Structures are given as structure tokens and as C-alpha cells.
């Protein structure tokens, strides 16, 4: 890797990558939360079934 400072397009690419990665990370967090909610819902359905016999 050379020691020269990044060129303008590298800064632009960096800025847009930060935005893209943040949105992706946010989607990953929401996906993880959805999985947790799905699991909790399945547990509650199971509990309701057991209660109803």
C-alpha cells in the first residue's frame, strides 16, 4: 500500500460506504429482532396449546 493521501474519489467512496454499511447493519439488527419475536411468539403459542389441553 502506498503512503500517498487518499484521492477525492476514495473519500467519496468512503462516505457512501459508511451510509450503505449503516443501513445494512440496521437491517441485520431488525432481522435479529424479528427472529427473537418469532421465537417468543412460538413459545407463547406452545404455552397456549398446553393450557388448552
Amino acid at each position, binding site marked *: 500500500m502506498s503512503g500517498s493521501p487518499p484521492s477525492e474519489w476514495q*473519500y467519496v467512496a468512503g462516505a*457512501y460506504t459508511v*451510509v450503505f454499511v449503516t443501513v445494512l447493519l*440496521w437491517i441485520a439488527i431488525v432481522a435479529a429482532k*424479528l427472529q427473537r419475536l418469532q421465537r*417468543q*411468539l412460538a413459545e407463547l403459542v406452545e404455552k397456549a396449546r398446553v393450557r388448552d389441553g
Partner: protein
Amino acid sequence: MTPRLKLPVLAACSTGLLGLALALVFFYAPTDADQGFSQRIFYFHVPIALTSYACFGWGAWKALRYLRTRDERADTESYVAIHQGVMFGALTLVTGSIWAKASWGVWWSWSENQLVLFLVLFLFYCAYFMLRFSVEPGSARANMSAVYALFGVVLIPVSFLAIRLSQKFIHPVVFNSHGPQMAGSQFLTFCVALAAVLALFATLYQVELAGKRIDAHLRELRELLT
């Protein structure tokens, strides 16, 4: 539009608009004569900053609605809007910092009122979460959060106008009393990018809100079953 349809339509709109905005930024907008290629950061940096102001404003409006109606849904909506605002605020600071390094040669300048005031606004709303989660859930927490969100909204015009009130600055002023100081193609690109980021906010807001509502319903269901 029914809520079941609203979210997919919003998501499709924001994806389409983001794609269009990126295409315009890189293939349509001309390279700025003054700042060069790095000026292309402007097309997402400024809409993200304006969206974070919109998020905080929306959060304050919902907080006001909570104080008037005591509707718990308004409290949740205020919280989600501020949460999104902090996320967009962090992105504003990071993209702005990268642009500053490309244009001015520094990552940050403490002498710039606009930057410092935006940082103050961002930290103010970060502290909102410390306040909110230091109090047990209930009406006391919702009241405190709502009052705090309303106080914060005062900082928005201060932050927005700081650059115009400042006598000495290096932060560029693109919109002044004479209108946008850019070419028509640049302004069109900016408008599409602003619409894209606002649509992204609307989508993320609805998704997070839906998650919070499902969470609350599950908690209620668990209490009913135990």
C-alpha cells in the same frame, strides 16, 4: 392505504429513489468547479442532516401529542423518531467529517459553529436515551422523555441558522435568501436524494415501530397466559 400495504410500498419507494439518487449523483450531476469530485458527498450528507432534523422535529411533535393526549402510542412514536434521528445524526457527522477531510484537509474544526452546534444537538439527543432508560417504564418515564424531546427541538433552528449567523466560516452555504446556489442538474439530484433519504427514514420508522408494537403485544399476551 392500509398499514399492511403501506410498508412494502414505502420500502419499494425508498429503494427505487435511493437507486435513482445514486445514479444521478454519479452519472448525471456535473463535477463541481469549486470543490471537485468530493462535492458529490453533499448529495447524501445534506439530505441526511435535514432528515435528522425532521426526525427530531417529528419526535417533538409526537412528544407534544403524548403530553396532550397521554396516548402511549405517541410516546413510542416519539422515541422511535428520536432513535432514527440519532442514527441519521451519526451518519451526518461521519459523512461530514469525511467531506471536511477531502475539502479542508481536516476531519473536524472546533471553530465552526455549524459543526459544533450539530454535535451539541446530537449529544443532547444521545442523552435522551440515558434519561429514558434510567427510569422505570410508565407514565413518569413517558412524561420526562416528552418534555426532554420538546426542549431539544429548540436546538434545531439554532443549529440550522448557525451557519447563516456566523461571520467567519469555511462550511459552504448552498441555500441562501437568493435560493439554491447550484446548477439546475445539481439541484434536481439534491431533491431526489432528499426524497430518497426521507423515504428511507419513513420506511425505517415504520419497521421499527412495527417491531415495538409486536413486542408490546407479545408482552401483553405473555402476561395473559401466565
